[in-house]
């Protein structure tokens, strides 16, 4: 159990620390262990999976949905995933699986909102800094799907490229390309020469 907790903590770590830790220890996949524990009936362990993957789901949703809807949708997605966890064939693939659920949920949201009312993303900003953040997020949302998701995970959620690759199941090369091309487009749109 302690070993499980330790490996889970290693996953939560970010940046250089995480990369170096993964090189030194050849630990078994923590997701797989957690998923198996949940399937065996230990629901408390699901909280660990939630804390590990909530930022990923949050980032994926934030790249596609209005911010006011994101928080609740994250919870809904994890509850849905808990119900359907038995359908997950490869316990190691929890990250890509829940990422796909999040993408599908965002698509469903847009499909439904088109049928009903167009949801505006005008959030009551507390200060000008938050407003600036929302403006930049809006610009990021105008980028192609692959770029905006990777950029939000990197710039908003603070995940590194290797982390994004591991959690989403994408190859490191794809993430790297998406990050650099997306960043290039974002720089052009923001006009960095004028300053932020």
């Amino acid at each position, binding site marked *: 159990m302690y070993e499980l907790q330790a490996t889970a903590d290693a996953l939560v770590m970010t*940046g*250089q620390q995480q*990369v170096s830790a993964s090189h030194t220890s050849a630990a078994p996949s923590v997701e797989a262990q957690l998923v198996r524990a*949940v*399937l065996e009936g230990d*629901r408390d362990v*699901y*909280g660990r999976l*939630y*804390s590990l993957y*909530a*930022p990923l789901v*949050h*980032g994926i949703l*934030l790249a596609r949905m209005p*911010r006011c809807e994101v*928080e609740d949708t*994250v*919870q809904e997605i*994890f*509850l849905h995933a*808990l*119900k*359907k*966890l*038995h*359908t997950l064939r490869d316990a190691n693939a929890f990250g890509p699986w829940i990422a796909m659920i999040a993408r599908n949920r965002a698509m469903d949201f847009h499909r439904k909102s088109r049928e009903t009312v167009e949801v505006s993303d005008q959030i009551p900003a507390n200060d000008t*800094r*938050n407003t*600036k*953040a*929302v403006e*930049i*997020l809006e610009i990021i949302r105008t980028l192609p799907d692959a770029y905006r998701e990777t950029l*939000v995970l*990197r*710039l*908003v*959620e*603070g995940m*590194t*490229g*290797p982390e994004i690759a591991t959690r989403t199941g994408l190859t490191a090369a794809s993430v*790297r390309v998406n*990050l*650099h091309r997306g*960043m290039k487009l*974002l*720089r052009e749109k923001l006009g*960095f020469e004028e300053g*932020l």
Partner: protein
Amino acid sequence: MKDDYLWDRSGEPDSEVQQLEEILGELRYQSRPLEIPADLKTGGKRFNFYAIAAAVAMIALGLGAWLAIQKQETQIATSPQSPSAEVKTVTREDSKPAPVIAAADKPAPAVTEITRRPVRVKSHRSRTTRTPRLSSEEIAEAVAAKDQLMMALRLTSSKLNYAQKKAQGSNPATPVYHQHKIG
């Protein structure tokens, strides 16, 4: 290198990326505990329940079918041997679909026996396992029927042979019959 900073925050920091990180960090995920409803059922448990229910139902069905077969077999084994007239009518009933014709030759009670009989001798197993006990009269009658059948078969066979030879146009008794006259 600036790209390395964007990739994994290593190398020389990129001021623009840092600036964006700082601003957009405001929107970062704020940890919030997951509230799992107590009555939330996971699919795995439901699947187990359905699997168990299906297994129980299958066992019950199998047991029921086995008991029914056993009951039928015991009924056949304990029932008295049928008389010869009834056995005859059973074979007729099998070959001829109209029971009215059979009933015309027999008295009224025999007709009711005819209608009930096929149900009792339906099973193949009972036919093969049971050896019918026939009386001497029945055996004589059966031998006579067999002789008649063999005679009919022989006649049919000879007629077929004759027809075949005629169709082929060869008559071995008069081989020069169809030849052209010489001279």
